[in-house]
């Protein structure tokens, strides 16, 4: 007979399901379909940025952890820093210069996450806070999205991407601005950006969406990227990593508002399907807003939280100054989370019935 455990352990004596480390990793893996689509349409820059951001995130986290005299190795292993880095990488233009990534990720990890107390204590979504800092500070670099490769004049290789990110020019000496000029000589913008500028020029929605940057139901390329994140998100749902409430509420809310707007002013509004399958909609719904730490935790709260984000995304896209509004929508709603949680507490057993 071997030894009997003398360790005092409180019940329960066992557990189930994924651990936090596994949860974080699973979210990273679930990004793969989206990353694949993004890489296919926007080139190797996506992968280069992902690697760069993850390295910066881990380094920044390690530095702060050692300053805070916290266990470095064990904490890095939880995968949360890696995930934050990855999410920022997927949000910024693939050929954004390296210092953009470094600043954004460092801000997210150091200020938004660690200075608030590390994992579990951040009030705001670190990835989106980092992204917003970049968007406000470097608006030009942050909106320099390349057109999808299929309508680009130049083919760019993996090394072109590396070179462009770190030096500003491809191996052949093209700058990002030059790369953005499409076959027809017009500078290409993202579908959402393009729509906004064209509406301001007095074109109607149907005229605008005739452009090749719009695909069958979303933006060309963007619809596939969104589909990729939708698939990844559904996998997360199936794995039990996220719950359906927040993604559902975001999509439903955004769709509803788009539909209302489109049915009132069809000439001035983005068609609802393009709304859902352009920009960062699916990415936001399944990967950003579902960050549990900064999201609402009650069932009703999650629905409200998602609905507010969906509404804000719509409003910012429709009436705001920025082509996409996911980051602002998420951060603004993060602010409301304590309030939402407080007022959506479920009725505890024995407190419903009155005798």
């Amino acid at each position: 007979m071997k030894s009997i455990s003398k360790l005092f352990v409180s019940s329960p004596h066992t557990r189930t399901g994924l651990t936090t480390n596994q949860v974080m990793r699973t979210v990273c893996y679930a990004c793969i379909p989206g990353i694949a689509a993004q890489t296919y349409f926007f080139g190797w820059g996506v992968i280069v940025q992902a690697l760069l951001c993850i390295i910066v995130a881990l380094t920044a986290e390690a530095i702060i952890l050692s300053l805070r005299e916290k266990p470095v190795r064990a904490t890095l292993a939880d995968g949360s820093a890696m995930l934050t880095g990855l999410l920022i990488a997927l949000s910024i233009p693939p050929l954004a210069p390296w210092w953009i990534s470094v600043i954004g990720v460092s801000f997210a990890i150091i200020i938004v996450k660690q200075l608030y107390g590390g994992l579990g204590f951040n009030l705001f979504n670190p990835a989106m806070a980092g992204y917003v800092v970049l968007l406000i500070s470097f608006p030009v670099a942050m909106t320099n999205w390349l057109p999808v490769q299929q309508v680009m004049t130049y083919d760019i290789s993996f090394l072109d991407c590396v070179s462009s990110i770190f030096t500003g020019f491809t191996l052949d000496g093209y700058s990002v601005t030059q790369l953005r000029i499409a076959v027809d000589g017009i500078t290409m913008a993202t579908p959402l950006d393009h729509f906004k500028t064209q509406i301001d020029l007095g074109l109607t929605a149907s005229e605008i969406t005739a452009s090749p940057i719009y695909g069958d139901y979303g933006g060309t390329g963007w619809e596939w990227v969104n589909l990729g994140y939708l698939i990844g998100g559904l996998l997360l749902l199936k794995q039990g990593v996220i719950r359906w409430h927040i993604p559902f509420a975001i999509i439903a809310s955004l769709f509803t508002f788009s539909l209302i707007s489109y049915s009132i002013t069809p000439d001035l509004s983005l068609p609802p399907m393009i709304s859902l399958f352009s920009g960062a909609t699916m990415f936001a719904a399944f990967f950003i807003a579902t960050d549990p730490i900064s999201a609402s935790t009650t069932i009703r709260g999650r629905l409200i939280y998602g609905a507010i984000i969906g509404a804000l995304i719509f409003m910012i896209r429709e009436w705001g100054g920025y082509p996409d509004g996911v980051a602002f929508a998420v951060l603004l709603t993060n602010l409301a989370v304590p309030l939402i949680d407080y007022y959506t507490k479920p009725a505890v057993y024995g407190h419903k019935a009155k005798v």
Partner: protein
Amino acid sequence: MHSELSLIEQVKSGKLWDIPGGIHPPERKSLSNSTKIDIIPLSPFYYVPIKQHIGNEGKLLVKVGEQVLTGQPLTDAIEGLSLPVHAPTSGVIKDITPHVSAHPSGKPEITIVIESDHKDTVFTTKPIKNWQTSEAASLTKHIQSMGVAGLGGAAFPTYVKTNPTKDIKLLIINGVECEPYITADDVLMRYFANEITQGINILQHMVQPELVVIAIEDNKPEAIEAIKLAVKDQDTIEVRVIPTKYPSGGEKQLIEIVTGQEVPSKSIPADIGIVMQNIGTCFAIKEAVIDGKALIHRVVTVTGESISRPQNLWVKLGTPISDLLTHCGLVAEQDQRLIMGGPMMGFNIMDTMMPVVKSTNCILAPSEYNLPSFGVEQACIRCSLCSDACPVNLLPQQMLWYSKAKDHEKLEEYNLADCIECGVCSYVCPSQIPLVQYYRSSKVEIKQEKEDKIKSDKAKERFETRQLRLERDKQARLLKHKESADKRKKALEKDGNAKDKIAAALARAKAKKASTGETAPISADAQTTNTQDKVAAAIARAKAKKQAQADSETTATVSSESQDSEVGSAEAVEAKSAEQIKKDKIAATVARAKAKKLKQAAENKEQGESN
């Protein structure tokens, strides 16, 4: 009335409700439920703690060295919530001493150690064969004297529940047994369905419910069959098969599943006309009433992957766990965990000399592979899996925050008291946080804090009462001072000649002095003499006054002291306002100061003159 009628009708309709949350852990019940209930051979020693139930321990009836018989009472129930314990077998009482208790803390408790004589001679007790015609009160007393306690886990004295003060509509028999691994109730239902039914009939006779519902989880088809067969002729007993889910067997949860009603917070089921009894308890009631057998044995599941012969056993209460493990063949792995109860709510056994008690339903020796233990606790990521799984709709993630911050007010606002400690939140937590442990600690802290508050409130009340009394005494004293001072003053005034007398005496003395030869001053200044006389008179007056005051003060003190016992009645005296007293005091002080000044002036003058 209408709603209560519809309660029974609703229950009769067979409708089931769902509880929020819950989990489906691997059941692993087939390990132990495939064999009949075996009887474990007699142990050489039995360790019978005198307290095995919720409430007070009974009064000892036996001494060390005494011979006892099987079923002989060892203690006698005392006033209040109390149950006796009985000798599990015949033998000699070796010792009555603190011994490791069947409690999570293992804290030693007074235990009667019996050395078995291996004869198991039975102590004769009287059954109540004609229970159908017996008074509920005498049955209640009998059940108490037989030491019957709830065998579902809490070991609440059964006689309290069989004697409800409220009108009971519904009796629920709990055969859910939702904890993984445990099959004690399962096998009892399979093999003793008729005895259980007899127990239920006794309960019906005592509690007089309109309807009895026996609730069994659908993972026990054999038990369901057996019970259904046993009650098929009884139309007031219904068998309800409920879906398997943990923790459906919790008292409040099962009530919700069967009736759709909630027991209001801080109430008991009887408040809504429901009483619940466990399957094992029904069997024990039958044995106590019909066979006249005290509660000295129960079915215990000995199971787990480290047990080579997992099974259910009739175990005499007081049997040390080590004997069970030996009998069933424990093959321990490194750091083998031993658990009393199930994996969700049981506690770990740190000493195998711990005895089986009334609430022991399972001894579990799991393998680390099949029942992985917790890893290192990580930060809460607010994933809210816990709140989704909570069967009472708490928000464990918020409560963790407040528990760590020791914010007891917030914890109460988030209804910590309603936590049933089922362990579901910890079970699903990806960060492996022992949430239940946090809540248990917080509950203890809050209880402690409340007790401390009661204590400090009492102390404060005592202090304030004392302050009030002292102040009242003081006021009474001051008033008396004042009164007697006034009296003295009046007396002095009435006797006003005293001053004049003194003055006259002084004048006489002066006159005498003058006449004895000091001619010059007189002739020089007659006015001065006049003044001098006046000063002298003033001094005399002041002195007299001082004297009078001193006198009155002493008398006042004396009188107030002597009347201290009467202070209570001196409330009328208090009517005199403190202000008045203060004013009087100031006046007296001013008078004193004036007198002093006057005196000083006079002295100075005298001095000047004598110079």
